[in-house]
């Protein structure tokens, strides 16, 4: 699963997202994108994803989980903070499992 982050996003939140994905057993890769809003990044990540789901991460640590089959402009989940939950929920969107309670759900 692609994780597309805005230039200048902190290591911590990214590592947390990766950890969430790993715990759920979903492979991922990271691309640093332009300065751009998280929704756009998420959408773009989804288009790159063999699993149809991608994550966009902003400088402020907020993140958007997007699915390629959803209409443009609407990320499926928007998680303002915890990277771990973001990673886990993106993985769960692929696995068809209920989401972990994060601030965005």
């Amino acid at each position: 699963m692609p994780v597309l982050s805005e230039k200048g996003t902190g290591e911590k939140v990214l590592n947390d997202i990766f950890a969430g994905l790993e715990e759920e057993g979903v492979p991922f890769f990271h691309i640093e994108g332009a300065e751009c809003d998280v929704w756009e990044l998420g959408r773009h990540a989804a288009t790159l994803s063999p699993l149809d789901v991608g994550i966009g991460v902003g400088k402020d640590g907020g993140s958007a989980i997007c699915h390629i089959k959803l209409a443009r402009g609407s990320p499926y989940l928007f998680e303002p903070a915890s990277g771990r939950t973001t990673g886990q929920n993106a993985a769960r969107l692929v696995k068809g499992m209920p989401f972990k309670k994060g601030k965005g759900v």
Partner: protein
Amino acid sequence: MSQVIAGVDIGNSSTEVALARVDEGKVEFLAQHLTKTTGIKGTVDNVSGIRFALKSAAEKAGISFSDIKKIRVNDAVPVIGDLAMDVISETLITESSMIGHNPDTPGGTGLGIGMTLHLDDLRSNAENGQAYIVVIPAKADYEWAAHMINEAYDRGVKIAGAIAQKDDGVLIYNRLHCKIPIVDEVAYIEKVPLGKQSAVEVALPGHVIRTLSNPYGLATVFGLTPDETRQIAPVARALVGNRSAVVIRTPQGEVVERRIEAGRLILHGRKSRIEVAINDGAEEIMRSIERAGGLINVQGEMGTNVGGMLNGLRQYLSESTGQPFADISIGDLLATDVLIPVSVSGAMAGELSMESGVALASMVKTERMPVERVAQALEKELGIPVEVGGVEAEMAIRGALTTPGTEKPLVILDMGGGSTDAAAVSEGGETISVHLAGAGDMVTMLIDAELALHSRELAEKVKKNPLGKVMSLFHMQLEDGTMLFSESPFPPDVYGRVVIREEKELVPLPVKLSMEKVRAVRRSAKRRVFVTNAIRALAYIVPTKNIRHLSFVVMVGGSALDFEIPQMVTEELGKYGIVAGFANVRGTEGPRNAVATGLVLSVAREVVG
């Protein structure tokens, strides 16, 4: 001379009316309406509901309210039902012998046995030759935890397994040099005693553990004596069906299975007086009721749960009907065994264990109920003559007989909320009737308890609707295995979840429940109440017990609207060669409006006769 008359049926839950034009014995039904009963059945509070139902029916019929020339109200039988539940067994596992646990994403697979050792003590306190289960608190990062374990392992320390507080079992596992089972999400990790023998078992996905759920597996793991094995057996039982588990054993560890004294019932029957303990279970209670030979009254042992419940009910009916306490008796009980999820003391992450209990539905009645008062109040309010009509059971039969394909002799089962009322009419026209405890509300209670929903409202929804499981953004699996596709994505709150498929809405259920489990509980609750009561009703009504002589059983009432209850009764009674199905009152109304229809028909006959 043609005139419009109304039949009014006041039930515990619903008030139903039927409007008809009667002309020299010819009856033409104009409209019907159903509304929630206002207040307690048989009290003056009912009037406002009746008034509303009549108005609505008149509107549907396109007539004016004042065209109604006569109202007949059923002579409501004064019974109310109530429910109670008691846990009768309880597994107590003291803090020193702890069990758990079934997280979504444990790490590794296999069985690990060793002494519990805190992550921080790996460096200082680990001895070579001793196998360890590492205890990892939330504050330890997974990288750090893996690093520490690897360092110890590389030094020659035997690492057999790990228990982690956070959800990072897979993360740690992926970083280890040794491949061990890891159980994570152990909430109360600070309660885990250190330096004790413990075992961690994780099975492959879709499999269940086999060692820690077997008493002799535990005995092998911990080298237990027969006496200790006997003590620890409930722990094994509590772990049956899990994918992963931890057991920690201390010499003082103690497991107690306690039976809670839930009290005794004193059954006053027509044949004899019998005492039975709630703890003996539902089967024994029901057998005792049978042996008592028709209940006259029931008392609950003073100072116990069941005593409190039965007296509270008497009090309530006495107050609401204005009848003396002494005139109020309990005419029937339905007991059912329930399996209730209860939190285990000694659990490490809020585990539940299934404890057995008994649910009771009871039928409280008083000899006379002041329906006349309701009738007078109604007449005064509406200015239309109101009379109290025939016996409820007879009216129900008369209404049910308008179902195509039925004739006398016939039995009706009125499956309501609080009670299942049965009535039979012979070929010659004699009727016999019985009120049995237990109906739709008991089904709801059982579902609520056995799924630990803690919401009657949610349980009612589970009862009334089929389930689905949202499998992806755009498709859902239905109970029968078929897939349903959606144009728009399902919202996040139902994603991956088992949902109740209400007509317009999907209601998510708690995450841990599987569709199979919810369905099984729902169907078994319905069977335990309604199939049981159908058989009980027939046994009462056909005392020779040779119910093969019966031909027609017709179901009416709110619970006959259920999407599976009538089919269950149809199938069960079919085994005895009985034709059973839900009514189609007047060929159009389905299982509703039987009593109201019967009331109208009884007026019509009198007009002719």
